[in-house]
């Protein structure tokens, strides 16, 4: 089974701090997606990374796909309370199925 391991599971930091969360696997992926899920809502796609070493920025969020395409990281600069949520990495397992990681639950304290 090609699992996606996310770390840390939980992270609580002060507003204004920086943070990095990780998504790792022993398998090579053709692409990897990051989603954010807020309480009572479905996952919302943030970004898809496709090329090894690729870096994508979404305002204060920076996503990186590892050179070997086995891992990815999400870095948030100057975290804000609005960044609070469950961050999920995910990959396509087949043409139709997405496999999700277990998620990092992020809490930003004002």
């Amino acid at each position: 089974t090609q699992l996606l391991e996310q770390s840390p599971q939980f992270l609580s930091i002060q507003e204004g701090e920086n943070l990095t969360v990780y998504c790792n696997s022993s398998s090579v992926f053709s692409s990897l997606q990051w989603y954010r899920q807020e309480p009572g809502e479905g996952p919302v796609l943030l970004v898809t990374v496709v090329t090894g070493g690729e870096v994508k920025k979404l305002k204060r969020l920076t996503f990186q796909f590892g050179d070997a395409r086995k891992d990815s990281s999400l870095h948030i600069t100057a975290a804000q309370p609005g960044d609070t949520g469950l961050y999920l990495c995910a990959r396509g397992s087949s043409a139709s199925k997405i496999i999700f990681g277990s998620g990092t639950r992020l809490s930003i304290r004002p």
Partner: protein
Amino acid sequence: EPEVTQTPSHQVTQMGQEVILRCVPISNHLYFYWYRQILGQKVEFLVSFYNNEISEKSEIFDDQFSVERPDGSNFTLKIRSTKLEDSAMYFCASSYFIDSNQPQHFGDGTRLSIL
């Protein structure tokens, strides 16, 4: 922006009863999916559907589950005889293409509580 809508937002059902969860995918999307998320656990794939047929299903999607697109807009998930362990959030998703790199758009889910 078009969105996937799900009803009801919360469904409470007695064990052994049938339940139907409803979804209206984004109107020009061709591929439809159901996922579930048991409290505190991962989002898990259940089934994908295209051209009025199941494309792929997981081992969770046993004979108690069925999906249907009864008209041009709705996509439903039926659980025939619910069990306590069916309690979960159920998410519908849709996409225009079927490709592991293409985004699937998720609804806000139906919380199913089996008593």
